[in-house]
């Protein structure tokens, strides 16, 4: 019966191939919360090396991100946090190494396979990346319209649900330029969640926000993580946020060009044997 309907929609929808693809893939794409155990990696980064021109930014790092955890990448400015995140979400291809998302290599995937992997991600960019010429509702609808066969009223209802979940109900017809920075971040989060991806990535979710708004953002991340089981990958240099939210942290360093510490935030805070880590987590300024 479903196949029949699909054929009908095939006639009317050029995108339907992709849509069918997605629905087959929905097995892994929608929240299968039953599997949300913490001991199975959802993202595996293996021997990743990144360089711009001749400058090596990240030298041979490996780490796993477990399903359903809040994982944070921390470190000083310019140490390559955003760079690593951009590799994970497939925006850039690394010089060396592989990045497996649910066992599939995002670096090698192309075309439909890549779209299929990308549909597992929602990404919230540092400057939110909302489309300025579209209302919030249109921003969220974009992905729903292109990847599903839902009717307009169903999409509107979903938009309302997403905006309510980030505390922005009623802002459907606002343009990004008409709302504040914190609201933009939340709207971008609502957009990232449009397809209920199993992984949400954040680049500096609290940058440019006041401490209270920043803390609200962190709470939202925690709440969505515990309620939906979404894996959260967060790049941050906001210490309070890291300590209150993260379940596991890796710390990158500019000089080491790699990971200098890994563990729970509380462990790293007590890591007296590594001065850099200790200083970072205890906010001790380094001499210039």
């Amino acid at each position: 019966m479903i196949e029949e309907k699909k054929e009908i929609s095939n006639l009317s929808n050029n995108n339907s191939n992709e849509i069918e693809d997605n629905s087959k893939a929905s097995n892994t794409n929608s929240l299968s919360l039953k599997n949300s155990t913490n001991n199975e990696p959802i993202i595996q980064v293996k021997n990743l090396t990144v360089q711009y021109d001749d400058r090596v930014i990240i030298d041979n790092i490996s780490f796993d991100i477990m399903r359903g955890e809040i994982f944070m990448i921390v470190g000083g400015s310019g140490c390559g946090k955003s760079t690593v995140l951009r590799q994970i979400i497939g925006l850039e291809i690394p010089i060396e190494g592989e990045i497996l998302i649910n066992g599939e290599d995002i670096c090698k995937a192309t075309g439909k396979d890549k779209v299929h992997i990308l549909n597992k991600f929602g990404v919230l960019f540092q400057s939110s990346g909302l489309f300025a010429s579209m209302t919030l509702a249109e921003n969220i609808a974009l992905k729903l319209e292109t990847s599903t066969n839902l009717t307009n009223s169903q999409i509107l209802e979903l938009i309302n649900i997403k905006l309510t979940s980030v505390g922005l109900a009623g802002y459907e017809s606002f343009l990004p330029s008409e709302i504040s920075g914190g609201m933009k971040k939340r709207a971008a989060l609502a957009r990232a969640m449009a397809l209920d991806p199993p992984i949400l990535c954040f680049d500096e979710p609290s940058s440019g926000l006041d401490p209270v708004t920043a803390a609200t953002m962190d709470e939202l991340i925690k709440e969505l993580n515990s309620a939906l089981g979404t894996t959260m990958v967060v790049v941050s240099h906001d210490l309070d946020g890291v300590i209150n939210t993260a379940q596991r942290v890796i710390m990158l360093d500019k000089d080491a060009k790699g990971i200098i510490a890994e563990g729970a935030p509380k462990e790293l805070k007590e890591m007296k044997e590594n001065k850099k880590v200790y200083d970072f987590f205890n906010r001790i300024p380094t001499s210039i």
Partner: protein
Amino acid sequence: MKDTNNIEPFEIIKKDNELTLKPLIPINVYYGDYYFEDIEKLDFENYSNIIVDLADVTEFDSFLIVFYNKLNKTAEGKNVKINYINASEEQNNLVNVLSKEQKEEKPNKQKKPFFYNYLENIGLKVKTMFSDMYVFIEFTGNLMIALFKFPFKIKELRIKDFAYYFNNAGVNAVPIVILIVFLLGLITGYQGALLLKQFGADRFIADLVGIVIARELGPLMTAILVAGRSGSAYAAEIGTMKVSEEIDALKTMGMDLYQFLIIPRVLAVTIAIPFITILADFAGIVGGLVAAMTALDMTFTGYSNELNRALNYSHLFSGLFKSIIFGFLVSSVGCFRGLQASGGAESVGRFTTAAVVTGVLLIILSDAVFTFLFQVLGI
């Protein structure tokens, strides 16, 4: 999952006045809409109790709430009760988190009826037109003051900027301007030749082309091209600076916007444009010559003698004078529109378009004024 062929979305069990629905396929954004048609077909009014058994739903996402809402709405007013049973903890969590009440106040941005919007838009457009005019006059005033002060501050002129803009707006515009005005001369020549031939007034083609190009087409086309090339570029550059807070940075550093940003651009265009126009005039006249030689079998000497007789300095200089005014208008409108941008990239695009449209409009308007004035003054 794979063999969803022929599987109904629900397993439906009817028993007396109780209807049990067991969803079988995923309730997510990809499959959820298959439920909708079936829900509409259900005869809720014949039952007093409806049980939705969610035990078999292992795959779901926020569409679950849309699904709940649909069932509840269908049951509305039908005197039935819906019971959801066997919902997993995860499902309840999802529903709780996503349908929580919003603490913050909702904004009240009401939708207005269409005709109201329409009227309001007309009103806004007219208002913007007048306020734009007002601000532009203010801008021109400020620019004039800055220009009068300029000779005393000439040392502050960033000569590198000026040279850059002069090169970009002037030198780089020459090839395209020459090509276009040459073709215009040629076209005017051919069209004129057809007419003049009928009256045996062949030699007047030089008068026609010479005067039309020198007085009107040369300056006009040059200015329109400069509006398209440089006016738009200035609006985009300054607009981008405006939205990325560079203009604000300049202001807080105590820099004079006019001196720093606008005068180099306006001066560069205003000084360059008469030179381009001279080249354009020349190209147009050569175009006319080609037309005269091919369509009317005129000789080069015949054409140039006639041109010499017909064209005097007042034709040439009135054209050049106009071109200077056009250049000033086009470049200052470009800067002005750039400064009006605010918000984001989209607004820069809008004002770049506005720069060209306003620029061309002002060129034509002032040309009409000049034509009238020159007539009265007998130039």
